[in-house]
Structure formats: structure tokens, C-alpha cells
């Protein structure tokens, strides 16, 4: 194996007001390796990447590229040096087409004009490589977060030259996309690229990476050969104390309420072009899972129930009352809560503080004139910062300054604060570290035990199986079945989804 070091950072420190994000961190990337960067939420992974690529100016330390000291001032400069990066918060232009997004800033030209044909053809070829079948002429906003993430990756892969950095690229991808991404990563590695890969999925780390560097609280813990490090050791390094997997799974003893009163019923609820009419009911204190691949209609169903999208057929009944028309305000009045999958677009209000983000939904329910006193707001905020272990110097910090996983926790806090009767969780643990993930799953079960109903959507089948007492399986926007009790196993569900193909014919791609 080629041991040549292409990118080396040493003694890197970086502080933000009130936070020491990195202190004396070292990191070395070899040629032709896939190197995982691991750590809890807020450990400093993204900050390190941003320092390496010139988004943030470092306070101390040195960066060397193939032995030569570099000091990029902007991502563009880093790119020119051959470091191409997909940041955690994907920065694309939703109203440009997929192809334009891939070629933005470097459009192919013909006689001075943009050569659309070449651009589109090249984009198709690139996405083909990632086994992604989308219309590159469509605006990007037309597609799901997962597709957008793949487009960002395709772009980065295309411009990469020596080094590719991927910050949580797989957080919203399905198993199949992940495997095509890994195929490409392995190929690039063969070609001699050095790849930095951040993820909270341990399995993925063991599947593709060669070495692992662990950060904790902004400090360098160590670098290890992936093969020689067990999962338990890895997580123990990350959290700084002994950890074993059974601990995390404990508390998953769930009760299965069957006699509970029905809280919500959907009767042939559907919307043309988005979801085939579907029947479902949720009991009080029940955790109902929605499984299916990307674009199978999971999120669409959640949006119909919460009234973000308007159903064009079917009925929705909550606590025995049939509702003629649904919109988020009403849903909240009826005791619903909804954490959306797209944190940046539909979740956080970046400019506001953690406190303001947390009280937003509760205040919306109370209305304009029953303003929650500041003291009370602070109390609520502190309560959830402690409960969910949100890593921040104070509740008055701008939410934009939090790490991705901690932002996700704030959105969860927003809805917990409303003390909902039914909580719809669309990818609630996206981007959340191993330890907190287990805690949140436990929290979900605890909530259910107090009589709150939960509708959970997750690309991680394991998560759904662990939390839910019943699972509805969707495919191609159709409900293809339901599992509960004994048959509620990952392989059973996968099989159902696969078989669905035979029953319902070919899928129409993972678009939309």
C-alpha cells in the first residue's frame, strides 16, 4: 500500500466565541486511502474540514499538501489546489437544473456560449457512474434531499484532483445509493485519490474505510487502522468512556399497546402524483413505523397528515373528529407535531437562537398574544438542552452555529416542547451520533409509554424495527403491507419491498 501522505494538518486550533472547537488537532491523509473522521456531535469534524478547506481561518497550526505548506483562504482556492469537498450542509442552487448545479462555475462553452448539450450529456454520464437515474434538465428542487446529496457528490467527484472530502454524505441515502457511492469511492481510491469520509454509521465505516481518526471535544484522540479497531473500542474512543453495544440497545423493551384507543385514522388518504390512497390508524401510545425506499411515499404521507400538502381524496379523523381540511396550524392545535427530514430548509431558522427555535411551535400553538415570558422560554430551553444533551455554550447561541447533529436535536426539542399527542418523526436521528441515537430511540419509547403516539420514518430499518410496534411498508407510493410482532424483522421488510417489484411492476426510479 502506498504510504505517501498527501494532506497533513498539525497542531490545528480553532475557537469560536465561547467554544473551543478544535485544539491542537492533527490529521494525516494518505494517498489512495479512505479515511474516516469520527466523533460525537460537536466533536469538531466539520470544523476541521472547514479549516482544511479555507472556510474558516485557523487560529493555529499548519496544513501541508504533499509536503508543501498551504493556506487556502476559500473553498475555491482549496479546490484549485485539488481538494474538493461536499460540506455537511449541501450548498446547491435549488432553482437551477441538476446539470447546471454540477457544472456551476465551470460551464462548458462553445463559441463563448454555454454548451448545454455537452453539459447535460456530461452530467448524465457522471450521475450514471453513481447509478442515479434523474432528468438532469429538471430543476434540482424537483428532487429529494437524497438526490440533491448525490448531485453534490457527483459534482465533487468530478472536480476532485487528489483529495475528496465528504462530510456525512450518506446521512439521507438508502442502502442502494450508499453502495453505489462506495463503489465509486473505492474506484477513486484505486486511482490514488485520498478520501476523507465522515459518518455516524459504524457499519459504513467498517465497510469502506482503511483508517479512522477520532476526535473528542475538539481534541485529537488517535488514528487507527480500521481492521485493528473493534466497534466497541471505536465508540469508547469517541465518547471517552467504556461502551458496549448491548447498553445502547437496553431500554428497548417496548410494550405493544393493542387495546389503546385509536387516535388518528386516515381513510383512503391520497394525493394525485404524490401518494396512492392509503388506510392507516394510530393508537394512543403506539409507535407506528413507515418503511420503504426513498421516494416510496413515506414523507409524502407524513406531509398529508400534517397538512403541509393538501390531500385530494380520503378522510382524516383525529380523536373521533373528521377534519375537512388540514394545515399545519390546525394539526398543531389537534396535538400533532412533525420533525421534517430536511433540516435546513424546513427545520431550523438559522438566524434565530436555540431558544427561539425551540419555543417556535409552542408559541405558534398558543397564538400571537399569549407570549411565553422570557424566563419561561429560558427554562424550557435549558430543560431540553439538558435532556437531549445539546452541545452549546448557551441557549442564546445562534442555531446556525451548532453542529449538524445538535441542530437536529433542537428541532426535536421544538416539538417535544409542544407536548404533542402524535409526533411524526421523519428521520429523527439523521446526523446524530451513536450515543445520542440510542438515547433518542429510548426517548421515543419512553414517550410512547406515556401515551403519546409516534409515527416514525427512517431510512434505517434497524431504527424502525427497534422502535415501532407495527410497521407499514410502502413502495412506489403504495402501501404494500404491514408487519407487526414476530414478522417485524429487517429481512422480512426488505423482502417485502423487493417482492413489491414483482407485484407492482417496475419502479419509476428514485426521483421526486
Amino acid at each position: 500500500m502506498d504510504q505517501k501522505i498527501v494532506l497533513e494538518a498539525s497542531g490545528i486550533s480553532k475557537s469560536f466565541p465561547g467554544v473551543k472547537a478544535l485544539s491542537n488537532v492533527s490529521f494525516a491523509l494518505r494517498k489512495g486511502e479512505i479515511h474516516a473522521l469520527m466523533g460525537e456531535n460537536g466533536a469538531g469534524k466539520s470544523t476541521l474540514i472547514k479549516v482544511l478547506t479555507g472556510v474558516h481561518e485557523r487560529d493555529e497550526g499548519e496544513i501541508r499538501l504533499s509536503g508543501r505548506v498551504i493556506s487556502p483562504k476559500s473553498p475555491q482556492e482549496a479546490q484549485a489546489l485539488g481538494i474538493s469537498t461536499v460540506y455537511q450542509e449541501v450548498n446547491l442552487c435549488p432553482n437551477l437544473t441538476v446539470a447546471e448545479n454540477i457544472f456551476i462555475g465551470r460551464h462548458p462553452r462553445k463559441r463563448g456560449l454555454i454548451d448545454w448539450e455537452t453539459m447535460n450529456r456530461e452530467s448524465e454520464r457522471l450521475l450514471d457512474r453513481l447509478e442515479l437515474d434523474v432528468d438532469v434538465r429538471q430543476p434540482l428542487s424537483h428532487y429529494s434531499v437524497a438526490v440533491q446529496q448525490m448531485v453534490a457528490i457527483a459534482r465533487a467527484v468530478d472536480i476532485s484532483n487528489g483529495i475528496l472530502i465528504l462530510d456525512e454524505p450518506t446521512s439521507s441515502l438508502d442502502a442502494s445509493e450508499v453502495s453505489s457511492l462506495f463503489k465509486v469511492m473505492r474506484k477513486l481510491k484505486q486511482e490514488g485519490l485520498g478520501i476523507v469520509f465522515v459518518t455516524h454509521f459504524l457499519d459504513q465505516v467498517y465497510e469502506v474505510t482503511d483508517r479512522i481518526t477520532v476526535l473528542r471535544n475538539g481534541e485529537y484522540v488517535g488514528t487507527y487502522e480500521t481492521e485493528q479497531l473493534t466497534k466497541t473500542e471505536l465508540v469508547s474512543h469517541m465518547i471517552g468512556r467504556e461502551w458496549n453495544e448491548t447498553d445502547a440497545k437496553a431500554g428497548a423493551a417496548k410494550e405493544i399497546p393493542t387495546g389503546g384507543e385509536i387516535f388518528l385514522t386516515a381513510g383512503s388518504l391520497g394525493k394525485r402524483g404524490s401518494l396512492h390512497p392509503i388506510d392507516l390508524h394510530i393508537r394512543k401510545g403506539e409507535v407506528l413505523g413507515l418503511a420503504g425506499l426513498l421516494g416510496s411515499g413515506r414523507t409524502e404521507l407524513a406531509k398529508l397528515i400534517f397538512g403541509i400538502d393538501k390531500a385530494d381524496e380520503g378522510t382524516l379523523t383525529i380523536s373521533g373528529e373528521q377534519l375537512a381540511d388540514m394545515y399545519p396550524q390546525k394539526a398543531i392545535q389537534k396535538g400533532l407535531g412533525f420533525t421534517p427530514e430536511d433540516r435546513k430548509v424546513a427545520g431550523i431558522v438559522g438566524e434565530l437562537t436555540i431558544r427561539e427555535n425551540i419555543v417556535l411551535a409552542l408559541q405558534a400553538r398558543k397564538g400571537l398574544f399569549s407570549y411565553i415570558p422570557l424566563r419561561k422560554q429560558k427554562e424550557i430551553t435549558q430543560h431540553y438542552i439538558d435532556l437531549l444533551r445539546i452541545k452549546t455554550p448557551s441557549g442564546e447561541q445562534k442555531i446556525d452555529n451548532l453542529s449538524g447533529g445538535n441542530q437536529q436535536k433542537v428541532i426535536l426539542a421544538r416539538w417535544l416542547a409542544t407536548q404533542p399527542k402524535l409526533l411524526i418523526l421523519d428521520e429523527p436521528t439523521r446526523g446524530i451520533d451513536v450515543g445520542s441515537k440510542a438515547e433518542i430511540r429510548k426517548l421515543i419509547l419512553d414517550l410512547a409509554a406515556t401515551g403519546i403516539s409516534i409515527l416514525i420514518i427512517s431510512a434505517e430499518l434497524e431504527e424502525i424495527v427497534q422502535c415501532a410496534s407495527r410497521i407499514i411498508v410502502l413502495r412506489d407510493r403504495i402501501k404494500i403491507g404491514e408487519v407487526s410482532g414476530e414478522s417485524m424483522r429487517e429481512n422480512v421488510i426488505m423482502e417485502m419491498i423487493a417482492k413489491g417489484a414483482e407485484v407492482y411492476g417496475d419502479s419509476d426510479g428514485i426521483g421526486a
Partner: protein
Amino acid sequence: MAILTALAHRLVKQKLIWPLLAIAALFLFNLIVIPEFYRMEWKDGHLYGNLIDILKNGSPLIIIAIGMTLVIAKEGIDISVGSVLAISGALAVMLLDSYPLWAVIGAGLTVGLLCGLWNGMLVALLGIQPMVATLILLTIGRGIAQLITGGQVLTTSDEAFQFIGKGHLLGLPFPIFIALGVFLLTYLFKTRTAFGLFLEAAGGNKTASAYAGIRPKVIFMTAYAITGVCAGIAGIIISSNVASADANNAGLWIELDAILAVVIGGTSMRGGRFYLGGTIAGTLFIQALTTSIYSLGVEPSSILLVKAIVVIIVCLIQSDVFRQSFILSKKKVAQR
């Protein structure tokens, strides 16, 4: 020393500091160049002087800028305020002949409200670009005001009405109290109800706020409605001050000063956070600048130019990017 720099850093972060510094610099300049600028006089139980003039003449602008702050927080803009002001003033003076004062004031405010709702409807409900939507009322507004005045400058000699713009209370011009009242009301509305939170959330991220159960459209309508009422109030003050209604010239270009005041006050045109205190400081700066230029005796024809230059300087100093590159280049020089 460390404490001092930390304090300096904190202050720099405060949006309010820039307009206040600008005012201080301007006053310092005046102190050196035109010391008589600060002369105050006590005549017939009233206080007179440039400083009082700034407050008095700035009152309509303050009121309009307060409304403007709200729509800019929404990532919007309202360029029709000058025209709305003209309509309200014209209506008030016209009605004065045959109706009691309270009805006249009520009519002025109501027409402002209606104009605001109209703008709000175009922007929030129909999704028209704020600049284009309010352009409609900007152009036809003056026409409507013309219709009301019958194409002439209406005058009035109603004493009670004139008190609004010309009267004194506790030795100070009455409009100052109106501006103070509008500020306090808006400030209370922002901080004692959830309106501030909702507007900042909806202005910052409309989709996310809708998911959280806020109705951005209602919030935006409200912001435009308040702006309309503010323009209505300003219209009454201005027409009362000159005891006449001039459909063509009342409040001409005031929207530009108001937008400028808001931006100098630290509210971003991209929406989100808004700073009412900053807006007041911004308005006072602009008004003080205008008054100073007049007392300097600058040629009327070049007044706008001087104003533009000063405003450009203030905006540049305010810009993080500019400040940083400036500081950086200074550091580099120091290193050499």
C-alpha cells in the same frame, strides 16, 4: 487591555453602535465647523434650535421607517409609503371642512391601513415581488391623491388640526410625541407579543416557520398593514404641519430615506432579525445629516450628492466584508 478588546468586539457586534457612531461623528464635525449649530432658544414657552428641528422634522420619517423595518424584516420592501402618505394627508385636509377632527384622523389612518392591506395582499397572497407590488401604489397613489385634492394644493386653517404637526407639548413639538408613541407601541408589539418572534422566524425561513405552525402570510399581511397605518399617520402630521395637502410633493422620496434608515440601523434587506432602535438611530442620523448640510449652506443642488457620499461611507464601514478586508490589509502592511 484584553477586557477592552473583548468589550470593543462585543460593541462592534451590536448593530446599534454604527448609526450611533455615525451620529456622534456628525455632531463632532458640526461642533468644530459650525458651532452655532447647537444654539438653543427658549421662546414663548417653546424650545427652538437645530437639535429640536431634527427631532421634529424627523418624526414623519421615524414613523415611516418603523413600518419599513417590519416589511424589510419580511425580506420585503414598501416603496409606496410616500404616495400613501400623500393620500392620507389629502383625504384628511379635504374632509376637514365637513367632519370633526377625530373622524378626519380616523379616515387618514383607515386609508393607510387599506393601502397597507392592498400591498400585503399583492405580496403575501398573490406572491408578487414586493418591489413590483408596491410600485403599483407608488404610481397610482399620487394619482388618487390628485383626485382627492382636485389637482390643487388644498389648504386649511383648522387650529386643532394644525396642532398635530405644529403644536407644542411640554415645550417640545408635538410630532415628537407621536413618533415616540408609535415607536413604543411597535416595540411593545414586538417584545410583549409573539409578533417579533413570528416575523423574524417567517422572514428568516418561511418554509420552516410554516412547518412550525406559523402562518407567514398572515404575519406578512400584518407587517404591510402596520406600514400602511404608519404612512397614514405621517401623512396627517405632514399636512398638518404645512396646513395644506400637496398631492404631488408631500413625502416625495421619503421611502428612500426610510429604507436607508432601516439599513443603517442594522436590519438586513435579506430579512430576519430587525432592530427598531437601530432604525430610530438611522433615521436621526439621516435627518441630522440633512439639517447639517442645510446649516453648512451647501448649494441646494449638491445636497443630494453630499448626502449620498456620507451614506456610502456609513454603509461601507458597516459592512463586515469591507471592514475585514480593510483590517486585513492594514495587518499585512504592519507585518512588512
